[in-house]
């Protein structure tokens, strides 16, 4: 039986944070009961609320809270499995928060109702004032246990905001806990995470021209990657972190180069009078995909780095605008910006299919970035002229991270951080 699943979530947020709104979910979600955690009441309420939001946002869960349940066991001994079976619940989660002032520890257990047994018992050691992080770790543990896929609640998203200033911001994957990495009076575009998620590369116009910088997130230490008189843009890190692919304009036209970050040697990858830009590496680093105008309209091409002098191979054929591609982490396909008539959408193409799958349907969707587990794509939209971030899961759930202040764009999802 197909279950209709529609959730709208309201949450209280501080003004500068992004609000989460789930607009659509999957057809056949997991039914999960989360009993209020015992122990420190304030922290427990906060943690459980974040846990519920994180699970809902994936579009794969229907959550049952205390008021929806027949019994609300505090621990394993109090569980009456039948009370959950009657409600057709798949999993039950109970937990406890220990707060001894210097340390906060969460313990939680997951029970498989159909099997009538405990399937997980976990402990997460927190840091004072980082209860969101604690909740994200629990969320990922729960997600992993139930779906068999690594969760992304504890990952981060980079994005650019514009109001009086341009800001490069890092936030939790739910859009909360925003922190500014860079503030500038000039535009910032194309943020890209290093594979270890400790550094970011981005394009800043602060010198009056597009230039690529690398910045260490913790220390704020940063450097201009190449000093020359022409513009440089579109940085992308190789999966091993040793190289940065870039677009350079030294002969007046956009061409792709690979920079060795250790010895600063540059290797030219493209040589064509048309635009070549938006390079990105395949998950194993053996190929580079990029956007090229060589056919007369922007299309995606791939170069095999294992072959010398390899000829770029065109990989998109449908429509006259396919750009800014990224590989799925399992290398089974690509996500990119596709123009249909005059609207720009985010689209997915699996390598073993000869058609593309549109994932979004607004007017000016751009900058798709894929979560490290490959399940979610965050992208930028324009709503009544204002830049906002949206998300879509490959299972079809959609959510929004609307800005309450300024325009938001250019999202980039980190790797796993747990």
């Amino acid at each position, binding site marked *: 039986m197909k279950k209709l699943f529609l959730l709208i979530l309201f949450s209280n947020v501080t003004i500068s944070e992004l609000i989460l709104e789930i607009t659509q979910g999957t057809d056949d979600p997991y039914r999960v009961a989360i009993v209020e955690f015992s122990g420190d009441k304030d922290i427990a309420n906060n943690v459980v609320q974040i846990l519920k939001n994180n699970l809902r946002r994936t579009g794969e869960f229907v959550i049952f809270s205390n008021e929806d349940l027949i019994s609300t066991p505090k621990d394993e001994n109090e569980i009456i499995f039948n009370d959950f079976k009657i409600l057709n619940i798949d999993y039950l989660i109970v937990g406890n928060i220990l707060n001894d002032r210097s340390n906060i520890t969460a313990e939680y257990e997951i029970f498989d109702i159909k099997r009538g047994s405990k399937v997980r*018992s976990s*402990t997460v050691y927190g*840091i004072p004032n980082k209860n969101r992080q604690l909740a994200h770790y629990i969320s990922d543990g729960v997600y992993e246990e139930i779906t068999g896929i690594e969760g992304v609640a504890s990952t981060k998203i980079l994005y650019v905001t514009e109001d009086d200033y341009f800001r490069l911001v890092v936030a939790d994957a739910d859009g909360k806990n925003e922190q500014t990495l860079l503030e500038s009076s000039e535009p910032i575009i194309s943020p890209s995470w290093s594979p270890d998620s*400790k550094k970011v590369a981005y394009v800043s*116009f*602060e010198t009056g021209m597009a230039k690529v910088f690398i910045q260490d997130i913790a220390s704020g230490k940063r450097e201009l990657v190449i000093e020359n008189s022409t513009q440089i843009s579109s940085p992308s890190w190789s999966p091993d972190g040793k190289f940065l692919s870039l677009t350079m304009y030294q002969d*007046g036209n956009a061409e792709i180069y690979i920079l060795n970050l250790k010895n600063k040697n540059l290797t030219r990858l493209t040589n064509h009078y048309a635009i070549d830009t938006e390079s990105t590496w395949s998950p194993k680093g053996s190929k580079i995909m990029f956007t090229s105008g060589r056919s007369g309209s922007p299309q995606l091409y791939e170069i095999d780095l294992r072959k010398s002098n390899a000829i770029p191979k065109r990989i998109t054929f449908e429509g006259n605008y396919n750009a800014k591609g990224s590989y799925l982490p399992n290398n089974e396909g690509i996500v990119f910006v596709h123009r249909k008539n005059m609207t720009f959408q985010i689209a997915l193409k699996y390598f073993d299919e000869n058609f593309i799958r549109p994932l979004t349907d607004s007017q000016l969707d751009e900058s798709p970035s894929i979560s490290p587990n490959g399940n979610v794509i965050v992208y930028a939209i324009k709503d009544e002229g204002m830049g906002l971030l949206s998300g879509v899961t490959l299972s079809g759930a959609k959510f929004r991270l609307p800005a309450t202040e300024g325009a938001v764009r250019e999202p980039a999802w980190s790797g796993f951080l747990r």
Partner: protein
Amino acid sequence: MFILRNKLNFLVAIIFLSSCSSMNVTEESVYSGDVSTVKASSYESEYINYDSKAVFANATVYFDFDKSTLTSKSIQTLKSAVNALNDNSSIQITLSGHADERGTREYNLALGQRRAEAVSDYLILNGVNKNRITVKSYGEEKPAVNGQDEISYSKNRRVEIN
């Protein structure tokens, strides 16, 4: 960010699958996730070349969607620019290319550059020394007009000469 304060902070995921119950037991610590904020100082962007401003006030040429070819109207504008440059041989100019917001930001940055290069090529072909010209692009990042309609877009697909 994500600096691990001590060894205890490393992810200690002890997962053991007991053969009879198949239950996962895990233990882990959250990372601290420190972030530093940097303020960029824009040292060149505020620079205005007043000499060239006086000569080329409002000298802007416009382009068709996804195109960097000069239109006949653009060439009319550029002819007077060539004359002004020849009459004032000491001034340096900057050509800033721009695109409308449709399409991806990096592709638009490259498109803005091509537009600025097309203007530069025309000026050089008509006798302007290339050492007097700086070419750059802002892509879609600095629209002249805000708006999601063709009239706004057409005003944003441009090269500014100053």
